[in-house]
């Protein structure tokens, strides 16, 4: 909102400064609340914290199982390390099921965030990026199983990521069809997923 013009003559420099400050404050507020401009309620903050602790627990179990390999020129060593780590993580999480990390309240929060991003000011660009990025056709995905070998990973639009909680290194949000997948790039395992997470817009 711009300051009203008054009958007395205000200092134009001060006026410009005030307008600039307003713009900066608006931008900062928009950034803090994500691209959609949606504000996290205290309940949302609790949900995000709960999600964070579930993710942390998964990352710790993966670290125990072998963690990330060291850089090497031997691709066979990388393949061996990944295979062994994956087997240990899968064994450790043998009972893992869909919703362990994306529990119902958490999944509902993610759906809201995704919908807000897709219907917000960046929605058109996000949808265009999803369409242009070589969309991955729906494939059967299962928690604690590998992401299909050789299948391209669709890029995740940056404006979408700005609306979701940050993840530790090695974990990624990936869009597969309309599903949101929590993908562990270290082991290539599907940690959890939300089916039909993206709204039909």
């Amino acid at each position, binding site marked *: 909102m711009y300051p009203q013009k008054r009958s007395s003559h205000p200092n134009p420099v001060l006026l410009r400064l005030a307008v600039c400050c307003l713009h900066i404050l608006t931008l900062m507020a928009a950034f803090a609340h994500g691209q959609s401009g949606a504000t996290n309620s205290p309940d949302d903050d609790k949900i995000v914290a709960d999600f964070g602790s579930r993710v942390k627990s998964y990352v710790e179990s993966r670290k125990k199982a072998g963690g990330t390999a060291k*850089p090497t020129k031997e691709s*066979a060593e990388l*393949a061996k390390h990944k295979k062994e780590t994956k087997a240990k993580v899968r064994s450790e999480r043998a009972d893992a099921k869909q919703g362990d990390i994306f529990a119902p309240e958490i999944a509902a929060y993610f759906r809201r965030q995704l919908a807000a991003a897709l219907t917000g000011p960046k929605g058109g*660009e996000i949808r*265009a990026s999803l369409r242009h990025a070589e969309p991955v056709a729906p494939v059967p995905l299962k928690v604690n199983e590998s992401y299909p070998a050789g299948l391209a990973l669709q*890029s995740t*639009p*940056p*404006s979408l990521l700005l609306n979701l909680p940050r993840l530790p290194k090695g974990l990624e949000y990936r869009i597969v069809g309309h599903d949101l997948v929590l993908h562990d790039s270290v082991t*290539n395992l599907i940690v959890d997923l939300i089916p039909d997470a993206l709204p039909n817009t």
Partner: protein
Amino acid sequence: MLAVWLSVGCFAGVANLLGTAAIGAPRAFPQSGLQGQAALLEQVSGSAPEIKLPLLPKSVRFAVIGDSGTGERAQYEVAKEMEIYRGKVGFDFVIMLGDNIYGRHQPKDFLQKFELPYKPLLDAGVKFYASLGNHDDPNDERLYKPFNMGGERYYSFQKGDVGFFVLDSNYMDPAQLDWLEKTLHDSKAKWKICYFHHPLYSDGKYHGPDLDLRAQVLPIFKRNGVNVVFSGHEHVYERLKPEEGIHYFILGNSGKLMTHDFRSRENMEVGLDSDRGFMIVEIAGDYLYFQAISRVGQTIDSGKVARQEN
């Protein structure tokens, strides 16, 4: 002010067919997927490499490949041509624009789709600096030492006065955006070159530009004086019209090829969608010289770009 000067090839007929202007200003690619062009290219193959770079002392010289890792014959042919040109130009590193290994990522894939085709270059000590494409395995490739990624999805390195900022455009998360802003800002490099897989501008009809990626990274590029951007993904060669002082190249045809892929010439200076290729680049002082070369060793495009204080 940036200025582009386009050189005139010896094979003026081929150059015209390929869209390179015969004299002076660059011209849009007149036709795509030309059969006659392929035949003409076959005729000129086998001739001595025609070098359009000035080969100045102490310059930074490198090659560019994108969407290379098919393991098919055409990739090997491009690689062979790269080796021929390296003998003349002496580039000592190659930047990779993603899709470095298509399909599975078993040891035999790294062998057939990277180590064998580029063996002469690797044996000569040429270093490869990879960025990740949507067909790459982000874990295995960042840890694969011959790709020189230092174990990271995104990273930077410097050669002489030239800073290279290598991004993972598959997953441009807030952490990477923060890193990009800070790393570009802190860099004292005279030239700032960003490269990554998904193009911000493209006349390709298969993928086109990534609008959301552009909306997030372009303001950072502008704020921090990026001069040149290289991308792949679209399986063609395209040099785009400069946008606000930044020059854009797409090179996604070093292994894959998508013929008849240009939907328009709206943003195009020069394009090729009928053969595979690679590029060689030389940077000396305030000028970047480029030469795009086809699978059969023919010059597709060449010129020079003056550095602008962005």
